[in-house]
């Protein structure tokens, strides 16, 4: 029961990543693509949480922490380059 519901949740998350990929592919300006990158990484962050539950290893949550920190860093760097140069 629980595993089936979590499987459906993972499928819905993959569909969300596909929709943001559409915006990343088509978005007219560079800022649009940066927003799509942000939403895409946050969606895959919760997908990593589900992978950690399915394979029963707690070390995957450390990877999720590093992943969230680095995606945040990437967004901050590109935004700073847009404002006044790095």
């Amino acid at each position, binding site marked *: 029961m629980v595993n089936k519901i979590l499987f459906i949740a993972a499928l819905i998350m993959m569909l969300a990543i596909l929709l*943001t990929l559409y915006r990343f592919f088509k978005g007219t300006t560079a800022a*649009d693509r940066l927003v799509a990158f942000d939403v895409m990484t946050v969606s895959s962050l*919760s997908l990593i949480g*589900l992978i950690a539950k399915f394979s029963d290893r707690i070390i995957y*949550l*450390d990877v999720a922490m590093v992943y*969230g920190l680095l995606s*945040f860093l990437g967004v901050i760097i590109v935004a700073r380059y847009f404002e006044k140069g790095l």
Partner: protein
Amino acid sequence: MENSIVEIIGAFLVLIGSVFLFLGALGLVRMPDVFNRIQTGTKASTLGTFLTFFGLVFIMPEWWGKLILLIIFILMTNPVSSHVLARAAYCIKVPMFKKTVIDLYGKDAEKLFKKETKNE
């Protein structure tokens, strides 16, 4: 296959969180403007990730420490990144939607960016 009621509550929380993530992505496709996209995308995805990790606390009770740490991390960094994104998109003058009625940030932003460029 027998599951306790707490695990089923956690699984439904994860399902609601994934639905919120999907709605955020749908808003990212449907909205007409950069600023509308920033608002709908980052707000919905913050709530979706929060609900997903909160449901995983119910399913795996022995992992609560790292999961609560991840929830606090997401709640602190995601609004900051949305704010920085909106400020950068205003600074490079991304064109707004045609039906925008009010822009209260205009004069303050002109003064602020002029002072910053003078300092360099």
